[in-house]
């Protein structure tokens, strides 16, 4: 039965375009708009700051490889028509080396976004060796904005497990992959589309890896139907990319930890610019009505002690201030002309996003967090 399917697939490929017979430009035109260019973390030590993703829904669900691009803050995608949109990471599935993203931005930008029918692709049998394939990716970041991604052609050389490594690390995917005979896995190509000759999605172009045994570069793609066995809280279970797409969350969602955020309480003091390591804590400005103003702190005062501890620099002052909670009394000694003046400040809570009446917008923003 499986063999029968295989021949059908092969035959389908043949009918639609024999190599050298006719141009695949129509297939290209239909397919490349379903691929987006992704920009994220990277740009150092051989790690590209760009990559590729495949669109799998009209409202902007995107699959890509779970790589370092998502380790930074902001992800951005360039759509086929050049529109630049922000990207949200919905879920990362390390065991499948796959991530599910959601394109954001203005709604009209995502209207009628061309996409691969993932459900349809998932139902197809695994493609066997010899099947002609095409790869669509933004390898080497050749394209930006509306410039089309690159197309390559080749064949599936084999389907099986991959023993590879990236640098000295094993590749984080243990399932079966398509190995292809074209050099598809270049910088930035990971997450691109591997399709058949008609542009039907077969898999995601993988990372740049070397074969463990021969140390040669391997070009592979993660099949749409990829599944791996993972150990979870309820024992072993089998997960696939389809699970990720349907649930839009990882098999093992990362526990949501409330990060304790160190915010210094609000005094209403703005210091001079902290230009060097040991910038003396001169006061540039005291906001009217603020705790510091009430305490009698004035511009051009130099903070010398905080509760008796000498304060040689702005950095020290900031560290010291983090020890106090709103409502605490802080004894501050300042040098004013030739005098040392001792004053008590009772700071308030620094409220992110809210506007207490004594705050003036922008400049009055108290320094939240460490400098």
């Amino acid at each position: 039965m499986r063999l029968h399917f295989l021949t059908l697939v092969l035959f389908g490929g043949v009918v639609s375009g024999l190599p050298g017979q006719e141009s695949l430009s129509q297939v290209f035109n239909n397919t490349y708009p379903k691929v987006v260019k992704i920009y994220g973390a990277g740009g150092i030590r051989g790690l590209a700051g760009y990559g590729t993703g495949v669109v799998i829904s009209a409202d902007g669900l995107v699959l890509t490889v779970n790589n370092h691009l998502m380790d930074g803050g902001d992800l951005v995608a360039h759509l086929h028509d050049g529109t630049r949109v922000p990207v949200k990471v919905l879920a990362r599935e390390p065991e499948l080396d796959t991530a599910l993203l959601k394109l954001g931005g203005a709604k009209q930008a995502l209207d009628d976004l061309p996409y691969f029918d993932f459900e349809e692709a998932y139902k197809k049998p695994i493609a066997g060796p010899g099947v002609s394939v095409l790869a669509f990716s933004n390898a080497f970041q050749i394209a930006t904005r509306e410039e089309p991604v690159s197309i390559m052609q080749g064949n599936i050389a084999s389907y099986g497990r991959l023993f590879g490594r990236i640098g000295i690390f094993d590749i984080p995917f243990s399932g079966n992959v398509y190995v292809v005979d074209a050099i598809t896995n270049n910088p930035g190509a990971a997450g691109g589309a591997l399709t058949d000759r008609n542009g039907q999605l077969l898999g995601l172009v993988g990372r740049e890896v070397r074969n463990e045994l021969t140390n040669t570069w391997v070009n592979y793609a993660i099949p749409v139907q990829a599944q791996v066995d993972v150990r979870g809280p309820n024992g072993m279970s089998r997960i696939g990319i389809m699970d990720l797409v349907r649930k839009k969350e990882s098999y093992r969602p990362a526990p949501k930890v409330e990060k304790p955020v160190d915010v210094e309480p609000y005094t209403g003091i703005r210091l001079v610019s902290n230009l060097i390591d040991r910038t003396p804590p001169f006061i540039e400005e005291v906001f009217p009505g603020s705790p510091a103003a009430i305490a009698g702190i004035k511009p051009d005062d130099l903070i010398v002690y905080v509760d008796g501890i000498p304060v040689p620099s702005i950095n020290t002052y900031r560290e010291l201030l983090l020890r106090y909670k709103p409502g605490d009394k802080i004894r501050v000694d300042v040098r004013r002309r030739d005098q040392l003046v001792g004053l008590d400040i009772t700071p308030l809570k620094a409220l992110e996003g809210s506007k207490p009446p004594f705050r003036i917008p922008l400049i009055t923003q108290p320094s939240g967090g460490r400098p």
Partner: protein
Amino acid sequence: MSPFVIWSVVASYTILFQPAQIPPAVVIRLENDRIALVKKITPPTVAVVSGGGSGVLISSDGYAFTNYHVVGNGGPAIKCGLPDGKLYDGVIVGLDKMGDLALIKLIPPQPNFSFPFAVLGDSDQVYPGDWAVASGNPFLLASDYTPTVTFGLISGTHRYQYPERGMFEYTDCIQMDASINPGNSGGPLFNGKGELIGINGRGSFDKRGRVNSGVGYAISINQCKKFLGSLKAGLRLNHAGLGALVSTVDDSAVSRVLVNQVFPSDALRRGIQPEDQIIRFAGRPITTVNQFKNILGTIPAGWKVPIGIRRITEAGETVQLDVLVRLISGERQETPVQADQPSGRPGQPKPPLKPIPAVVKAVYEQKENFANYHFNKILRENALVKLQAQLKLLGQNTPWQLQGQGTFQNKNLAGGWSLMINPAQPAEGNNPATMDSVGLNIEGIDFRLEPLKADLDSRALRDPTGSGGLLVAAFHLKQLLCLGAKGFPGEGCTHGGVEPYWPPMEAGQSFDQRKSLMAEVIKTTLGGVSSRWYIEPETGFLLSVEVSVDPEEDPCEIHFSNPQADRMGRLLPRDWIIIHGDKTFAKLKVVDWKVNP
């Protein structure tokens, strides 16, 4: 010897398919098609032995394209192997360093020898997904010069690849996944029909070393075509620059290209201003600086191109302007790096140049700023001969008397005019020696100029006011037509290549309807005044001359038309349109043109 072909795709099909599953006739037909294709593209593929690269023949008399980085840093003599197994002598003809393009000429071993050559395709009709076939000499594998043929897809078009060390900028280039490797440089990229669509020359490499990593680039053949005419003239070519800084402004759905700063150049003189939006450049719409650079990089310096501008006036109105701008040289100042050294480690002495074979010496002449002055002289002479075939004035340096009617637009005047040009006379009897002189009378107003007089008043050179120098232009016209290259002593007459000539706008014609035609250019200098002469390549008809008193100013343009034979059978142009800057100075009708009064 059948060519070594990478058949991976076809091979895998033939292995996999059982005869029952596919009509064998299809496979056989495809095989035969492929064999025919390889047969077609093999003969013109050149193994550039000196330089270690490839090339492709484009004419039966032996012109071939290759990369600058293959032949540009060696001597003028190039040994080339062809798939017939023979080694041929070749010579450098023209060089385009920034575009990484070189034109060489294989020297026919005997008269009437005909080289096989590739047919030039149209790279604007190449699309991603088309089949790509590369041919060349990777890793210098072929000791018998039989090329390696590799096969793949066009991966992208209109790609931009940044210059390396200030040179070899690949603009508007073709990206392919057909395997190209060291040694393929300068070799041909063909489409599925076997038409030449590009010159292979670069690849993207990263961790895998300098071998094919699935991303190769070819200079588009349409870019090569723009440079070909000038490369044939033995020139070292520059790429164009606008003379203005532009940037992409990305504050709306579609980005815009705005002018930031305009430098003294034709762009400035044609009225391009900071804050202007460039909407069209050389006929293509522009929304990003990358597109702009992509188009700019395909144009030789000195060409005139139409530019579409959108401007918001002080009154807040949006106006659209079209201007024709002569592009400047965009070449950066070259730093004397070791890039010019032939291969070898830095610090090593240059290997001594091999002695130049006699057959190459016969077709090579060294001159500063030229790749091969020999070819320039030949093209110059050919162009001048074509010109004289119509005018038949060469060697007759007699006084000229022209008369006619004209309209002078800056004075709103219509009336008669006369022009006299007298060649210098040595002292004879009681008559003292005289200098060359030009006299022009417009409705009774006299202008007179001795154009070669020392310490000329700079205003006199520009007379009549508003013409940009019609008197001196008329003198140069007579020099060229009556004395040829000898009229411009000190190598002051060279071939300037081939570039578009834009006839003046006709009444009722819109800017978009303007059409240029490719013309041969002759450049002359005399007495600090330089001229560009535009000659119609087929007929030798003199289309126009631009005479520049100062390169920083607009020239005096004379556009010629309506040639009529005089009684000696000379085809002399009877309609002259004189343009200076954006204004038409005069339209002259030559009623009487006495060349031998």
